[in-house]
């Protein structure tokens, strides 16, 4: 599945509203193992940003450390990127977002990066409802340090070396729901049809959008006993239904027959279109999503799709009532009170 950029490109590659082809959204050639799930996710990110016609330079991509966290090199080459330290991408994203609320922030992390060393930051970035997309490329192991079990490895899951994981897994999607995340989705790296619309919806969401993507590590965790292997995931996947994102300007009724699904209006005016929802599933029902996730787990199934989205959401900038203008554009005249104000302050201290 490794996404290798073809050298030759067809002159008639489709263009988006900005007149860009996917080429403008690609990154450097991947150096991950051939077949690594992470590369497929990179390809989906490229496609989602292309389809949404986001100017690449208006996206900031951030990551921690791990094979997964290396991927920002391999997508969105015209975007600024920041490969930070292990487990601490959320804080860097928070600071960046505070500095400029107008960019689109895409954070990429691994299950080690998020569920172990970065757990504190993951929990708190959810709590603050930072306006960002947070993708975990979840392979149940530490790829970059050669395959140790991660905290998302299922109990009883067998590593390539044959050892059986004795610990309970941390269910990141369940945790995000529990913590009050305003957008929670789950998907599989191999299912681009599902993943691309989910990433698009996550970008459109004006708060914290979490996507837990099962992403097999072909080198260390793709063996028969592993619950994060391609075969296992394909056999145990259960979708909540088809998701699509309808851009603001598209007439909903022209794209979809009414009555077959649910339209979720996003804050930026776009709609998420959910089709074929499993019976009784309502994307605005957090408790329902938690139950469904738990039930699927009990059946050893992986529930994918959009699990939950909050209609009205207040992100960190709104919570703290910071300026509508990006703080990094304020000039000295607006920031520095000057000497006459200082003279008054001095007087108060005499």
């Amino acid at each position, binding site marked *: 599945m490794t996404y290798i950029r073809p050298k030759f490109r067809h002159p008639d590659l489709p263009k988006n509203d900005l007149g860009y082809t996917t080429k403008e959204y690609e990154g*450097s050639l991947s150096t991950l193992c051939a077949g690594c799930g992470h590369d497929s996710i990179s390809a989906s990110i490229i496609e989602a940003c292309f389809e949404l016609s986001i*100017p*690449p*330079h*208006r996206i*900031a991509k*951030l990551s921690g450390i791990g094979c997964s966290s290396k991927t*920002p*090199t391999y997508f969105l*080459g*015209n*975007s*600024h*990127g*920041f*490969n*930070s*330290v292990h487990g*601490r991408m*959320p*804080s*860097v*994203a*928070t*600071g*960046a*977002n*505070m*500095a*400029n609320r*107008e*960019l689109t922030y895409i954070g990429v992390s691994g299950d080690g990066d998020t569920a172990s060393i970065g757990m*504190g*930051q993951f*929990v*708190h970035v959810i709590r*603050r409802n930072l306006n960002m997309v947070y993708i975990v490329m979840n392979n149940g192991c530490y790829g970059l340090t050669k395959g140790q079990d991660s905290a998302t490895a299922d109990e009883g899951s067998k590593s390539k070396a044959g050892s059986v994981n004795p610990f309970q897994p941390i269910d990141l999607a369940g945790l995000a729901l529990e913590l009050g995340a305003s957008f929670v989705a789950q998907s599989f790296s191999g299912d681009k049809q599902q993943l691309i619309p989910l990433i698009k919806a996550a970008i459109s969401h004006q708060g914290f959008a979490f996507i837990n993507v099962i992403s097999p590590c072909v080198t260390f965790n793709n063996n028969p006993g592993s619950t994060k292997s391609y075969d296992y995931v394909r056999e145990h996947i259960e979708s909540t239904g088809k998701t699509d994102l309808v851009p603001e300007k598209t007439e909903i009724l022209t794209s979809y027959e009414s009555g077959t699904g649910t339209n979720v209006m996003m804050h930026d005016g776009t709609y998420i279109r959910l089709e074929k929802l499993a019976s009784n599933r309502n994307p605005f029902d957090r408790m329902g999503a938690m139950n469904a996730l738990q039930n699927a787990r009990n059946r050893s199934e992986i529930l994918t799709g959009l699990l939950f989205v909050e209609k009205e959401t207040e992100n*960190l*900038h709104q919570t*703290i*009532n*910071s*300026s*509508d203008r990006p*703080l*990094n554009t*304020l000039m*000295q005249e*607006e*920031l*520095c*009170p*000057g*000497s006459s*104000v*200082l003279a008054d*302050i*001095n007087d108060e*201290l*005499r």
Partner: protein
Amino acid sequence: MPNSKVNNFVIRFANVNGTGSASANYLFAKAIFRMGVPVTPKNIFPSNIQGLPTWYDVRVSEKGYLGRREGVDIMVCVNPQSMPDDVRSVRSGGYFIYDSTKALHPELIRNDVTYIGMPLMEMCLREFTDPRQRQLFKNIIYVGALAALLDIEFEVLEQLLAEQFEGKEKLIGLNIKALKLGVQYINDNFSFPLEIRLERRDLVGDKILVDGNSACGLGAVYGGATVVAWYPITPSTSVVEGFETYAKKLRIDPETGKKNFAIVQAEDELAAIGMVIGANWNGARSFTATSGPGLSLMNEFLGLAYFAEIPTVLIDVQRTGPSTGMPTRTQQSDILLAAYASHGDTKQVLIFPSTPKECFEMTAESFDLAELLQTPIILMTDLDLGMNDHMSEPFVWDDNKQYNRGKVLDAQQLEELPRFGRYLDVDGDGITYRTIPGTHPTKGSFFTRGTSRDEYAAYTEDGSVYARNMERLLKKWDTAKNIVPAPVLYQSENKSPYGLIFFGTSTYSAEEAMDDMEASGIVFDAMRLKSFPFNKTVEDFIHSHEMVFIIEQNRDAQMRSLLINELNVNPQKMISVLNFDGMPITAQFITSQINKTLSPAIN
């Protein structure tokens, strides 16, 4: 000495934490300041919210010495818990003022101390009904008594109360009533004023009385900080509180009412510094404030900021380590940790303010320095400077001064550039050009990383490219030497074989010690360090003296180590004067330590 008891004493208040004594004690200190007499208050408080002993020392010095002085001339003791110790700490010939509601234990009577007992509790019970008022006004009554005993002008106290409780007439009235109760009790029972007393002077000029942390917070407002991330820790907390207080007044958009700043209380210091790095990377001026334990946690990120060259401003208000140490006591003991923060070859720029005025201007300047040098700037203050009020030169701001944002390319410049190299040393000073995310559609984006990369920010594991980059960082370090604040020399020409080096809050006491030693015939040359890296002046100063005393407030002579490590100087002649008991260093301590070394030589 003639009149040595006028405007020249130390008074100590012994209180119980959480009983509202702080504002009464401050009222006392501020009144002296308003009478034109130099004053230096110091809070000695426990790591506790309520119930443990706390002391407030006020040194009054006609000569303007602002360092701490040992020896208590007047003890005001309203804490039975600490009374035995408090009695012991009074100097012979001094005064012990106490709450006489309960009789003093006979063992606490000293013949060489004058006792002034006032039934504070009893008076409060009689005069006030509200339990909280009974507790609070006990403190105000003793201030009133001191006004009579020490000749504090009553109108000054009235004026201060009027300012403090503006618009709350009832409170002003109650406070004045309490003050008068104190005055009256002294009138009725004791002869006054005491020999030790105050006289109005004109020695304060246009100086201000303020703590260093508020000054740092205000400096960050003036320096253009917009994103603040922090995690509470004594003694740094009031830096961010100071920033917030001023920003709420000075940084609200007049049209929308929204904030032209963002403060995030992070989940820990790991996150706080990460947020600061993220914000600075994205073109906002951003800072955090912490103390030793936080600085330890921030190390990994400081290495990233050093290596990836991201402007970062960090205010370290040092306290007594290691570990939790004595969290409410002062020290200068994070120097080596800060100077070489993080693994690998790293060197960090340190700035050492020694007064609130410098806290203000150096904090503001740190944002320029951070962006000029594209590296962390660590402002090294301490608990004594940060949390105590200091008489300081007023804050100054030059309206013609423009923020220096350093080498940042805008869209136009990127357009004209054939090829942008984030880590390309175009100017030969080791400082390269950066761009802010979102500037140009196709040019200027780069990948920031803690891994090795080439001049164009592309990942590389080529050892020679890595080494070239590390060499360039050293070149930048050399450039920094002439950009960071230069040391202060106390003489235009050397006049002594002995040199003194000091920095930060040791300055007051070092200056006083120099006067004292000069009076006894030993003259010193002196230099105050204001930053690291050290420039050539520092090296020259050391070379041109036979013996150099380095005064610092830690056990391990950290500044001395740094000087020896960074400069080509002979360690043999570098002699340490080390105070590390958590109390601010005194001139007497410095003098006695130096005398220990010099006396044999002089004799």
